[in-house]
């Protein structure tokens, strides 16, 4: 099957972290979830599909890292205390950290598809997908691209008000 021959073939569960609202703690929760699962001995990856405001690299102190290519695609950046959490974010593709990614939907969609199919994740128990606020291009494209795979479900984050 398509799923068997791809970079996501070795990923057991995919978890989306969503919220309609911005600034409620999606990236923070995604990061803490990944670290906690790693502490519990799981193999973990994080895919940051917030293209305009990628927060995960700084949260894991790898904002100055770059990504490399291998035969099966892009090699994720390995983070965390034991450098065992695999992370992919547009943050790694920017020439300068303050560069604005001023893209319309179609270009965002193309990159998200690439992030889903072209990152060599290897064998993971959990792939956590951090999303931007809203219900638009990034969300539609991510769900569409992930549909053939083991999508566990979504965790929704909110604040009380």
């Amino acid at each position, binding site marked *: 099957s398509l799923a068997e021959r791809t970079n996501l073939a070795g990923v057991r569960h995919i978890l989306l972290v969503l919220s309609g609202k911005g600034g409620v703690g999606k*990236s923070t929760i995604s990061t803490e979830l990944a670290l906690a699962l790693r502490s519990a001995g799981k193999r973990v990856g994080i895919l940051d599909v917030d293209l*305009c*405001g990628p927060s995960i690299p*700084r949260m894991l102190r790898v904002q100055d890292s770059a990504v490399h290519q291998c035969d099966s695609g892009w090699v994720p950046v390995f983070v965390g205390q034991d450098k065992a959490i695999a992370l992919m974010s547009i943050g790694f593709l920017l020439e300068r950290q*303050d*560069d604005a990614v001023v893209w319309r939907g179609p270009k965002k969609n193309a990159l998200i598809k690439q992030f889903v199919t072209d990152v060599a994740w290897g064998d993971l128990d959990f792939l956590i997908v951090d999303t931007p606020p809203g219900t638009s291009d990034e969300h539609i494209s991510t769900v569409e691209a992930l549909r053939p795979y083991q999508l566990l479900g979504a965790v929704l984050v909110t604040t009380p008000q």
Partner: protein
Amino acid sequence: AEAAELRARLRAVRHTVLVLSGKGGVGKSTFSALLAHGLAADETRQVALLDIDICGPSIPKIMGLEGEQVHQSGSGWSPVYVEENLGVMSVGFLLSSPDDAVIWRGPKKNGLIKQFLRDVDWGEVDYLIVDTPPGTSDEHLSIVQYLSATHIDGAVIVTTPQEVSLQDVRKEINFCRKVKLPIIGVVENMSGFVCPKCKNESQIFPPTTGGAEKMCQNLNVSLLGKVPLDPQIGKSCDRGQSVLAEAPESPATLSYRSIIQRIQDYCEQHHFQEEKIM
């Protein structure tokens, strides 16, 4: 022809201010609403508040207009009036239920934004305030493009003190520079919390890298002011009331008023300079 249509519709708008942030949840909508209320306190002034956050429109709730619908007339869509001199437009007014998700890709969002500018009968407006969603994408590109038919005084950029926000805000500042949008200044929101009981001040979002102040110095933009984190603000928003009216003496309100005055001064001064040139 389209540009001409927009130009005609927006001809009667004197000042336009965009409220932006790279980051979500920093208080753009809250600020937009209070800016609109603050400016509309002068009854001789006509204020329009346009909410182009298509996926997460907060303005109807913050302005106490949930459940309102948009009416059509011969001259176009009618804004929803919260005061005689304060009209509001948002996708929120077009939904059958407030929980309906607007799951649209960029092009469809752009289409609605164009309609908001072309089809809404704003009438003569002294200040058009545009509330935006977080990011630097379709909505932002489109509003700058469509508003080139009129004159944008500038952008007010909202942030909170912590680096996770500032890093997105720096991108937003670069976006403004890229599209040649003047930056009126930056507002640092949720800046310090004073306990109502013991009056002790805490930094809930510590400015680990110097906060908006340092960022503004580094990037040569104006810091319009700092607004403290005040639970009264959130409560007022949830209830659709203006905190400026509900807590007129609070430090947050005083901060907002000072910032609003500075924005007004900026707009009036630049208008004056343009008139001089002409």
